[in-house]
């Protein structure tokens, strides 16, 4: 093969750089605009620099009851993350053996990922309405609704996060060396000990990745929540409600705060993954590296 970099490398490198600029440019623009002075408008040039709009949001004099929506989204995100991690790891382990209904679960997950969100959301809302009607008709006439953040809302989010979790597990176990488990078994480990001391530590970085997907996808989720969240709003729903009446930078300030949480979670997850990988490299086995 030719030495050095071909011309196509430079062309594509510029193309890639342009794509990254296209991805990040607009986002950076609104982060900047949310730090304007009190006279700030919706577009550049910036009118002064201050944290006026951000503090205005925190004082609650802003547009929506932000604090409550923020707490709701955070709670839901953490629960979705935990459930996604546990269920994905368990199902991922199951897929390493043949079991009945394997293809039903696989196709359900894929279908859940690609059936348009509005349809899933509508279906969940119909399901819960029908449940409500049944409860009212047969048990309790004064029953309000079974729809809510942690019932229909949680379910709606899980239909979006679980398929990602399962696909990541497939990717992990494609690269996993089963001989490690055999060795553990040969040394007399129970299945649980094998999982706890061999499998889990090895797959832990990727499991944190699943948690990252679980939280961030829930934190920003909109389409599936739209019909199925019940009476209260999550933070993205409030934000979407504001887009129709954009008149001053509070919407940018809100966007900046929501993004700050996303970035903090991403940084935390990636930092942990990096640390775990380093630890694995440092404390890993020297088996197969030749004689000392």
């Amino acid at each position, binding site marked *: 093969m030719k030495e050095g970099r071909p011309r196509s490398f430079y062309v594509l490198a510029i193309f*890639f750089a342009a794509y990254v600029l296209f991805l990040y440019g607009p986002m950076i623009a609104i982060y900047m605009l949310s730090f304007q002075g009190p006279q700030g408008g919706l577009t550049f040039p910036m009118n002064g620099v201050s944290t006026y709009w951000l503090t205005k949001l925190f004082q609650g004099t802003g547009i929506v009851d932000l604090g409550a929506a923020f707490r709701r989204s955070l709670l839901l995100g953490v629960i979705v993350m935990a459930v996604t991690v546990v269920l994905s790891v368990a199902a991922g382990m199951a897929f390493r053996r043949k079991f009945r209904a394997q293809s039903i679960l696989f196709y359900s997950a894929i279908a859940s990922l690609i059936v348009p969100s509005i349809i899933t959301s509508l279906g969940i809302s119909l399901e819960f309405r029908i449940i409500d009607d049944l409860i009212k008709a047969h048990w309790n006439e004064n029953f309000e609704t079974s729809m809510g953040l942690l019932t229909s809302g949680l379910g709606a989010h899980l239909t979006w996060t679980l398929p990602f979790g399962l696909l990541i597990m497939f990717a992990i176990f494609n690269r996993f060396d*089963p001989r490690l488990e055999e060795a553990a078994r040969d040394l007399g480990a129970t299945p649980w000990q094998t999982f706890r001391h061999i499998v889990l530590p090895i797959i832990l970085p990727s499991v944190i990745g699943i948690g990252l997907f679980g939280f961030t996808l829930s934190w920003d989720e909109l389409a599936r929540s*739209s019909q199925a969240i019940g009476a209260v709003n999550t933070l993205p729903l409030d934000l979407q409600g504001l887009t129709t009446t954009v008149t001053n930078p509070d919407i940018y300030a809100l966007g900046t705060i929501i993004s700050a949480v996303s970035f903090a979670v991403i940084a935390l997850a990636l930092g942990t993954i990096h640390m775990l990988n380093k630890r694995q490299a440092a404390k890993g086995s020297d088996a197969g590296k030749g004689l000392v």
Partner: protein
Amino acid sequence: MDTSDNILQQASPDLVRGSDMARSAKAARLSPSFISWLQAGPMMLVFLAFFLIPLVFVVIVSFWDYNEYQLLPAFSGRGYTDTFEGCIAQLPDLCTIGKTYVKTLKLCFLVWVITLFIGFWVAYFLAFHVKSKTWQMGLSLLCTIPFWTSNVIRMIAWIPLLGRNGLVNSGLMKTGLINQPVEWLLFSEFSVVLALVHLFTFFMVVPIFNSMIRVDRSLIEAAYDAGATGFQTLVNVIIPLAKPGIVIGSIFVITIVMGDFITIGVMGGQQIAAAGKIIETRVNALQFPAAAANAVILLVITFLIITMMSRIVDIKKEL
């Protein structure tokens, strides 16, 4: 599957089963299939309760009757007849639903072509030009991070750039290319397509990159040794081998755009009709059977598109 276990199993079935039994009394009580059920059951239940049963309800409710203020659980085709109202009478002109689907498919096609082009070359650069694993990881992450941030924010982020007094307009005015602001930059089909490309190219990049990374590099060497030009290698070796990724990415992008109502709503200034938007409008009017009927129609059309595309590759083999 443990190959060595299999070999042992063939050689001496008792030995393997015996060691299984000896491993722990508890494990002996739980049959492997029961353990599988324990592991996969919870996820299956979630999909059953929040995905499969709701879909069945969508189909059932689409055949219910309704009036101004409530659902009537009686068989009726009204959800569908209301949806296709005037479709026969207005021939050869398109009725509302027909126009809406033509518009949705047009948006879909535009977004698909653009995301495929960008996604392919971004993936190509990452897979074939970035040699060091660390750089590959870093640059892939750079493409992934926006996916973990809010879609709505990534939409409204275009406002300061594309608005009447936005960066693009003021820039063009300064250079003297235009005398007055361009109106169609924001709240138009242009801004909808731009935002959809901005949001969903990622879904194209990942599967295509995944296919490309598995391409055996010696095939490219062989093509080169056989005297193929770079372009011939691309067309005859890389594109055919990347095809599964291209199809999976395309399925993602097409299904997302077909059902989208948020991006089209926010970036189209709530003025553009689309398949997903109809469902939302009907729900807001509490016309659930009509909403469900539209959902069924959308589902059928999406399913037809996916079936056509998955004829090209076996998705299950690719994962």
